[in-house]
């Protein structure tokens, strides 16, 4: 059963230095508030996993939380490069970051294999690309019926998955809707999971296209209204496109980045144990606008 706790408590409980952490959300429902709490709690040596490391991972990398990045597309969607990601990979600042690089399909199936508790899954992918031989957790496998050779990816079992959803009920059942990406797979593949939510409701009203995570497969639920901003939460708020564009200039320079993070993320600490569901973490919403 998911425990309802404050975001600060949940991150303190669930995310440890050296963990493999997947924060998912495919352009929608990106768990910014939770990622910022990870930054505030100064986690180190994380292996960060995410199909689309965008602004949130740029921030985590730039703040020195990340030792290794497992990903398939690292950019600022619709804008361009991730400068903190590039600075880490190109120049090792603030620390060297090793990478394990996949295609969307391949990394997706790593999660799916994890969620199914299979050691691998086959797929048609990677053939003929220079990723072959350079990317760990990628192999080939021969079909026992046709003899055909396919790609195989190893299951991914993060220590923690962190996702953001629109709603949880008071028992910790979670519902999210709209573009749902690989959030279900990330949570089901992970050993522990944290779901931040826009609100806690008495009853989850079934929605078209909703993904429901029963309370008993979630470790903790934390209230974090606005917790996906500057990405969006369908039914709650829209994507702050202007901030995505502004991030390009903020993140290009190391000092300006550091100053921005100090002002907008570090100076908004949610002290462990201090806050309770319903107030302590609401502040995370709306930052970076």
């Amino acid at each position, binding site marked *: 059963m998911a425990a309802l706790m404050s975001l600060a408590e949940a991150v303190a409980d669930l995310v440890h230095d050296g963990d493999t952490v997947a924060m998912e959300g495919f352009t*929608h429902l990106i768990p910014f508030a939770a990622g910022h709490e990870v930054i505030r709690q100064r986690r180190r040596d994380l292996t960060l996993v995410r199909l689309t490391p965008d602004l949130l991972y740029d921030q985590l990398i730039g703040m020195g939380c990340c030792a290794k990045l497992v990903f398939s*597309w*690292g950019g600022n969607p619709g804008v361009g490069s991730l400068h903190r990601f590039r600075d880490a990979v*190109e120049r090792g600042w603030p620390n060297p970051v090793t990478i394990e690089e*996949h295609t*969307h399909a391949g990394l997706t199936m790593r999660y799916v294999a994890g969620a199914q508790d299979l050691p691998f899954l086959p797929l*048609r992918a990677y053939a003929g690309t220079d990723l072959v031989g350079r990317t760990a957790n990628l192999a080939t496998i021969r079909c026992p019926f046709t003899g055909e050779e396919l790609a195989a990816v190893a299951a991914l079992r993060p220590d923690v998955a962190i996702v953001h959803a629109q709603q949880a009920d008071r028992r910790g059942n979670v519902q999210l809707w709209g573009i*749902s990406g690989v959030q279900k797979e990330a949570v089901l593949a992970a050993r522990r999971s944290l779901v931040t939510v826009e609100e806690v409701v008495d009853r989850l009203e079934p929605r078209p296209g909703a993904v429901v995570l029963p309370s008993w497969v979630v470790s903790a639920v934390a209230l974090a209204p606005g917790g996906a901003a500057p990405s969006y939460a369908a039914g709650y708020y*829209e994507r702050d496109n202007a901030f995505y564009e502004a991030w390009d200039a903020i993140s290009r320079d190391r000092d300006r980045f550091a100053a921005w993070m100090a002002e907008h993320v570090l100076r908004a600490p949610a002290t462990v144990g201090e806050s309770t569901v319903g107030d302590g973490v609401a502040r995370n919403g709306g930052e970076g606008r």
Partner: protein
Amino acid sequence: MTGAEVHPDGAGPATPYSPTEMMTVAAARALADGTVCFVGIGAPSLAANLARRTHAPDLVLVYESGTIGAKPSVPPLSIGDGELAETADTVVSVPEIFTYWLQAGRIDVGFLGAAQIDRFANLNSTVIGPYDRPQVRLPGAGGAPEIAAACRSVIVLIRQNLRTFVDRLDFRTSVGFGDGPGHRERLGLRGGGPQLVITDLGILRPDPATCELVLCQLHPGVQLDEVRARTGWDLAVADELTVSEPPSDAELAALRALQRREAKGSLTSD
């Protein structure tokens, strides 16, 4: 993504347009109505949405975020933009879009861009310079390798110059025709590969025998020498080189209306 405006010489429509607009319009024209189209963000999405508003109202737009049959009123700034989901026939998970839809060969046309392309239309969107000591680290593969592998046909949109049209890719992210004839088949790739490369200068198609890209069409006002000078290999040119029809007033109007909405969307999303 702007360029010097082209002023038609009076024979065609009167509205001036940029090379980028020509490129987008050419891409839109390549989409027959009813085509099922796997769309990325930026130029491809703009082209597909332009086609949907002009000659191809029943184009089926599939985005890798899982939206199938999306009908956005504004070209999305991100493949996950909310309106894609709201207007889609159905929204499926990312695992499903890559397995049941893309891998299964249900997509007619995939759009790809890249930082580099070679003569066999292989693409690099991963890195400039050595992989382990990158000069420029690019975003990476995303959905591109599987789009390149599985779609019945691929359209590449790329600006043409000596940085993009290279003799040798720094990294092969997505396979066009690999090392030449028969390579796709040996790799087990099921889709037809890149059938059309649209640049700001003209249009290239693979030679059916050699698989090498052949310049088939110049955009209005572009000289052949200029294209050769902006290609990093000895460019093959079709015997009968045609000239693109300039963007019509209707096409330009529709395109610009889309871009105005896009710009507005990006400023008022809050």
